[in-house]
């Protein structure tokens, strides 16, 4: 069964491109969210296996939001994404409950599968 994915990002252009890329790689994108509040709502409703979570959101940030999403759906796994590179966030990323971090331009099906396999 395909891995279900929730994409959380405030740029619709990126969401569209990511959805197309993931679907071509065999993932099932069940929902998109543009901010923290709708991300939480979609997590409770769709129970995604994976949440692609942008670090910078209009109403909160991904690192703060991640534990809340985990609490809403303990079986979900979170991959943080950002335009910036991992070094911009330092230790906050490694201490977070996410299984990994991807710079947005490194996003690809194999990279995600690798993170999921390792987890």
């Amino acid at each position, binding site marked *: 069964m395909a891995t279900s994915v929730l994409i959380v990002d405030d*740029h619709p*252009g*990126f969401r569209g491109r990511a959805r197309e*890329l993931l679907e*071509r790689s065999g993932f099932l994108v069940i929902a998109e969210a543009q901010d923290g509040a709708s991300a939480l709502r979609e997590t409770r409703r769709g129970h995604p296996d994976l949440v692609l979570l942008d670090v910078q959101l209009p109403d909160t940030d991904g690192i703060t939001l991640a534990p809340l999403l985990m609490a809403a759906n303990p079986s979900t796994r979170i991959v943080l994404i950002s*335009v*910036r590179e991992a070094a911009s966030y330092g230790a906050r990323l490694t201490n977070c409950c996410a299984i990994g971090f991807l710079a947005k*331009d490194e996003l690809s*099906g194999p990279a995600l599968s690798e993170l999921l396999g390792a987890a």
Partner: protein
Amino acid sequence: MTRRWPWGLVAGYSLVVALGQVLESLGADRLSPSEGSTAIRIGVSAALLVVAVSGAAITASPRKAPAGPLLLALAGIWAATSVLTGGAAYGLQHHWSLATEAAWLAAPSGLVVAFLIARLLLGFPDGPTTRKTRIVARAQVLALALGVPALALGSGKLPGGIDVANPHQLHGAVISQLPGVAALCFAVLFLTGLGAIVELQRRRRKAQGESRQALTAVSLPMSTLFIGLALLIFGPSGATDAVAQVVMLTSLATLGVAMAVAILRYRLYTLDIVLERSVVLLMLVAAASAAYVLAVLGVGAIVGSTRPSYGLSVVATTGTAVALLAVQRRAVGLARRVVYGRRATPYEALAGFARQVSTVLSLDRVLPATAEAAWTGTGARTVRVEVTLANGTTRASTWPPDAVLDSVDAAVDVVHEDEVIGRLLLEYVRGDRPDATRERLLADLAHQAALAIRNVRLAADLEVSIAEVQASRLRIVEAQDHERRRVERDLHDGAQQRLVQAGLTVRMATDALSSNPEDVAGLLAQAGEELRSARTELRELARGIHPAVLTEAGLAAAVESLAERASVPVTVTVATKRMEPALESAAYFVVAEALTNIAKHAQASSAQVAARVQNGMLLLSVCDDGRGGADPRHGTGLQGLRDRVSAVNGVLRLSSPPSGGTELVAEIPCVQ
């Protein structure tokens, strides 16, 4: 409203007393020993004048206390008695028939004085206001009404200082009781006075604060006055008379002053006036007496006659009058120094001020120094100096430092090169009036202060502009940080996102090469589109940081390009050559910000941008036909522009009436 007539009355009394003194000294051998003593007579005159001045000060003040007129009446009766007794003594020497009539008129004065004193004490300071005190007051009036005829018509020797039989005495059984009636009346007045003192002590114990102090000030001389009165009435005649008189005179004078102090307490400084005028009057009387004695004795000795002659008296009186004129002016100056003590002459005040301000360079010191010099030199109660700074704020200083200016009696402008840079405001002591000398001093002081104040005002203005520069420097740095954050955010949200998308699209195309080769061309075209929009956003961003057209082609071209992208049609009239980059940049951003604001807020249908250089100034204006009513205090954009323009020594003005239309004008000095 202050009254002047009480002071006129005091002057009149002085003349009457002086006349009485002359007459008494001429007829001294007809007076009783205690009345005839020179020391006592001078004491009487001094006490009388102090009482009169105290009464006048109270009467002239806006507080209507009955003590004022009573003290004035007391002094009046006293003065009249003095001149009547003196006249009688002198007249008896010359066997004038009217002499005994004068002595007769003076006879009841003791009782009238006793009445006035008893009445003065009753219910001080408001007079008989309660039912009890009103009954006592009626008893006092009755004692006066019965006592005066009893004294006037009684048989035997007349009371008072002249040894003469009563010319109007009546005879008969009833009449023989008159001395007893008179004594009874004295007793009534004495006892009611004593009762008033006891009552006053009782009130004093209950009173608090200022009124307690006031009553305390009055009660001591009241008590000693009554000891003197008791001695005079009940003591053995002869030896104690002089002592009793001294005690009474001192007490009466002290009482008068104490009452004036007590009544005018809420503005104690009026005491200065009482003291000043008392000192002047006493000195005038002393000078007059001295001049007279010298003239009569000196000239008499030269002429070889020991007997006073009319001719000599006339010469002496004229000489005294002339001498008085000269003495008066000095007496006033001397009295001021005696009373004010710490205050210097106008010259000293000016000289001290000039010394002081020649070194200081701060408003905090020049203003108090100016106020103090004016205060010292004019004897004003309060002086306030106000200076208006270039930025419109006012700095002021008051002297004495804790005083408050209640009213303005005199105001002098401080003028430097036809510009009013400050004002001197004075409040005089009540009843005091500015005279020519003090007005001249004020004018001189304002003149001297002008230079010092102008200097420190420059320094203060400099302080203000330094503070403004520091504030704007901070704002510029903050604006710069703000701008950097904006650029970072724009990059992150704009071009970077497009580049990420292009990257993902290219990755999809790569993946599709093996699985779906027919998708590759579409994906690559999409990636190309995304790269193009990334480039556009980068170009926009770069122009926001600094427009290349401004650097390359100057203000006119840059403004044209702004106008092309504006939300409303913009007419551009820019006729300038190339200027310094900082100046061009300031002008460009004024136009850019103004056009952005027009797009956001003005609801305008068109706008005009005009720029020209005139007399070394770049005059730049942006106006629109929108709704107007823009508030210059709002918006950091405008403040940022103001800072930018002032950094190149320019000024920015916004005119945006609620009736419509907004005009932003920048004037920047430039060299083309």
